[in-house]
Structure formats: C-alpha cells, structure tokens
C-alpha cells in the first residue's frame, strides 16, 4: 500500500554541475585518530570502483564518494544544486564523450553524487556538465503531516516500501539503527545542507553493533534524533537517513548519513531489511 502524497503538485526543475577534480591542500595529509597523517583518495572526480551498494567501510580511502561528484563553480547556482537536488533524481550528461548518458543522484556531500554505469564512467572527464531533473522539494505525506521529508524524490519514496502502521505511525525498512551518541561532524550545520558523519572511531563498537557492515546507499534509522532544523538529540524523535559516502580515518568522522525523513515525536517505526539500499531500489552497481 503506497502513501498518499502531493507529488502531482511538485515542480521539476533543471540544475547542473561539473564533474569535480580531486584536490588536496598542501601537504595533503589527513590525520587519523592516532594523529598519524596519510594521503588518501576518495572525494571528488569519478570513483570507478566504489559504487552505491558497495561496502561503506574498508576502503583505503577517506570519505569515499561513490560514482561521480559534481559541483557548480557559481556560488548561488551551487547552493541551488544542493538545496533542490533530491535523492533518486535522474541525471544526464550534457557535455563531453558521455553526452546523453543517464544516471541517478545517490548523495549530497560537499558535492552532489551521481551514479552512472561503468561504461559511462569510462567516458566521463572532470569538467563535464551533468544536469539533474530536480524534483522533490515540497514533497509531503498527506496523511502524516508530522513527518518531514528532506531531499526525498517521489521515486525514492515509492521504492522504499514504507507502510502505514496506524493513523499516527509509519514503518520504514532500514538496514540498521545508529545510536545517537555516535552522530558527529555536521552537527554544526543546518540539516538542509549535506550530511552528518557517524563517528566510527570506536572500532570495537562498530563491530559489536554491526555498523561496520554498512553499505553505501543503505537506508538507516537514528532514534532520538530530530533533524528538522539542524541535527540534535531529542528523546522520542526519529530520523531516516541514507549512507552517502564511505568511512573516514578522522576522529569525529565516518560514513556520511543524509537526512531523508524526520519526526520530532514517535511516529516513525522501522523494520530491519538487508535490502533497504538505494542500489537495490534503483538497480545500481552490482545490483544492476
């Protein structure tokens, strides 16, 4: 049973960005939690071998952004790209060798992340323009007004197989629950902008809770987290989120968790489902 929405009234609008070039600040070291510096790839460009559906942990990289990362050099257009793009939106290449190829938006970090198939990735070049059919801002659940949606496309909402429980509550399939005490970097930002890293520095806890099995594209829940206007602790709240980037060696960082749904009171329930992943929902990566 699908939920009633206002999707028919949403405005679909083009936004665009260019494939970004990986960049480092001299001398290029990222410090790990022991204070040891390493030069690690992962952000920007096209990551050929990490795609949505692959593990979020274990890469010899930092904040690995699966697929292709795009940004707009004009500041106002860049914020439009960030604020209007929704997860699951369709994207297409508008310049370069891969012109015309289609992809799917899978994340928002400092750049917008788009998944293209391997054959398309071979043809992409930093600077190529990617356009997104932005659709989803304003999306609401008509029968559950207390649930706020963020960066949720109608296509993703449909794919997530959310069920009504009763007149107050819905149930969302997720791969795992994250304790609110491990939510870290990103707390200083408004929740309309990018993600919040889970803090993976307590490696034993990651293993104990199975969080180290997280995959890029996983749908997860953070109980007691209110993400309506910022990201904060609130008993009884719940937030449904998407794993958008890989783990980090930096203290206070880890896989990136992007808000999709949030409610300040107990109205979002969840059920554990190992298939609650963007790759499964959109046939991406190895799921294709």
């Amino acid at each position, binding site marked *: 049973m699908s939920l009633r929405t206002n999707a028919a009234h949403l405005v679909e609008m083009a936004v665009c960005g260019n494939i970004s070039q990986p960049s480092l600040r001299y001398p290029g070291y990222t*410090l790990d*939690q*022991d*204070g040891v510096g390493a030069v690690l790839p992962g952000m920007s460009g096209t990551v050929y071998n990490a795609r949505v559906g692959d593990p979020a942990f274990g890469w010899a990289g930092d904040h690995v952004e699966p697929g292709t990362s795009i940004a707009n050099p004009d500041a106002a257009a860049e914020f439009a790209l960030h604020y209007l793009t929704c997860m699951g939106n369709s994207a297409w290449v508008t310049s370069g060798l891969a012109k015309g190829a289609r992809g799917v938006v899978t994340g928002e970090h400092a750049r917008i992340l788009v998944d293209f198939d391997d054959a398309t990735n071979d043809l992409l070049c930093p600077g190529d323009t990617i356009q997104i059919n932005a659709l989803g801002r304003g999306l609401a659940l008509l029968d559950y007004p207390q649930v706020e949606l963020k960066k949720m496309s109608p296509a993703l909402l449909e794919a997530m197989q959310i069920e009504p429980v009763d007149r107050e509550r819905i149930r969302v399939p997720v791969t795992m629950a994250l*304790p*609110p*005490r*491990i*939510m*870290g*970097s*990103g*707390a*200083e930002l*408004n*929740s309309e902008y990018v993600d919040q*890293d889970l*803090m993976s*520095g*307590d490696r*034993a*806890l990651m293993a104990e809770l199975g969080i180290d099995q997280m995959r890029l594209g996983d749908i997860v829940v953070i109980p*007691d987290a*209110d*993400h*309506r*206007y*910022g*990201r*904060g*602790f*609130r*008993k009884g709240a719940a937030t449904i989120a998407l794993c958008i980037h890989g783990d980090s060696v*930096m*203290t*206070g*960082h880890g896989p990136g968790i992007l808000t999709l749904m949030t409610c*300040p009171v107990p109205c979002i329930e969840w059920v554990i489902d190992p298939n609650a992943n963007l790759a499964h929902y959109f046939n991406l990566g190895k799921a294709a």
Partner: protein
Amino acid sequence: MTVTSLKSNADQLVSVSVMGQIASPGFPGLPAEPYRLDSDGRPFLLPTYGGIVYNVSVGDSAYGWLADTVHPGVSISLRDENGNRGLNLFACVGNTAVVMSGDAKGARGVVTGKSGRFSEHVIVHFSKADREKMAIGDRIVIRSKGVGMALADHPGVKLKSCSPELIDGLEVTTAPNGRLAVPVVAVVPPHLVGAGSGLTSEGGSIHIQSQDREALREAGLDQLRLGDIVALADTDSSWNHGYLRGGVGIGVIGQGDSPRAGYGPGVTLLMTSATSGLEPVVTPGVNLTSIFDLAT
C-alpha cells in the same frame, strides 16, 4: 586522593605575543534575512558572537540570556585568516591579555574561551569598567603560553588551550589509580555532545546540546555557569572531537546557550585522554572566576 605536585615542562614553554582586534558582531547581507531558526523551526533574531558584551561575564549563568551562544566579555579576532588561526591556536585559557590601543590601553584581562567554525574568536574577560572604555577594533595582545605543555607523570593526557596558570589554579592531582583527577561541576554524557564533533580540538568549541531540556536536567547540566569546568564522557579530543568509549575531555564553558538544534553552551577543550588517563571529580563551584579571581 593523594595530592601531589605535578611535574610539567612549563619552564620550557615559549611565550609569544598573538594579537587580535575587538570583533564587531556580524550578520549575513542582502536579501536581509537576519533570522536563524531554533530547533523547532521558529525564526529568531538575537545578539550572537562578537563585540563587547557589557552585561554578561564569566561567572554568570550560561542559560537564560536572549542571545545565541553569547561570548561573555570581549571577543577578538584578526581579519587575516592565517593570522587569526595563530591567535585561535596559541591563545590559552588563563593567558594574560593586554589592551594595546584605544582608551582602555594598558588594561589587563584573562582569556576565558574560544569559539569555533563560523566565528573563530578568542574570548577575553575584562572588568566591566574597562569594557566601558573599549572600542571595536582596539588591539589586544595575548601573551600566549601553554601550547606544548605536557605533564610528565600523565603522558596519556593531552593539554589544549590550557595555560600553566590554569593547571595550577585548577588544583589537579594524581589520583591513587594514577589518573589525573580534575575537579569539574558536571559530566556531559556523549549523546548530549553536539556541534563541534569532527572539528579541531586545538581551538574552537564543542557544544552541549540543550534542545531536550529534560535530558539536560537529567544530566545535571541545566545550571551551568559561564566559566564552569566540565567533563565530556566517552569523547576523545586528541585531534578532532569524536566519540570513543573511555575517552574523557575536560573543558570550560566558554559561551552561552543557543536556541539552535545541536547547539547549547560551548565548551573550550582544555585536556583530553583517549585511554582513561583523566578522572573527573564532580565538585560544585569549579569556575574560572575563583581560579583567576576575576572581577565582574
């Protein structure tokens, strides 16, 4: 608990001048949307960081002010980004500040905190009489001393933004179990550690989350005063701030409460141990005002 005199390398520390100018408050420009949103989405327009704050001082409540993360006393920064980083990293809580220009020239103050991403000020206490004479832009030199300090018997404890005078005044001791015992007014549980996680611990601030007032009360954090010394449980701030079971941070309440989600009173980190080298001892009234005899 055994009181011992702590061996440190304080006599080897370099004391160097870092300068800042009294910062003006700032707001975003056109299209003139001056509002921030509180944790329930209500817009608010209130004083926030920067400037000369005449009526809020270290020792006053951290809560109840109609302001967003107010800085008590005087906030200084430098327009040059790298120079400001030098100021923010080298200034230590307890360092002496001297006014070098303007009508308050020669007045002396004490560094009481730092603010983080989006403002990066050093917060300095001056007497209210001195504040009356100050002007935005006045130059203030911090006689910085403390970066590099280590305690010989506590190699697992890292000191940050911590002056030798603060170590002396805090009356830290070596506990029978070998840990460094530090008096604090309260311990912040990890689920209430908010904005600042993942950011540097060498300067800036990490905030107590105050949105859930009941959780705040349960943790005994609803009566904090500016300048109070607190502990952060299960937090390792060796490099950035982050969650780690057994890690302990010690800091000072440098800024007031905030209506924003993920925010609340700001903590300037002073000490951290990733491996149980610190033992917070809850003791009422541990505040910079008594440690440094600050006139309000």
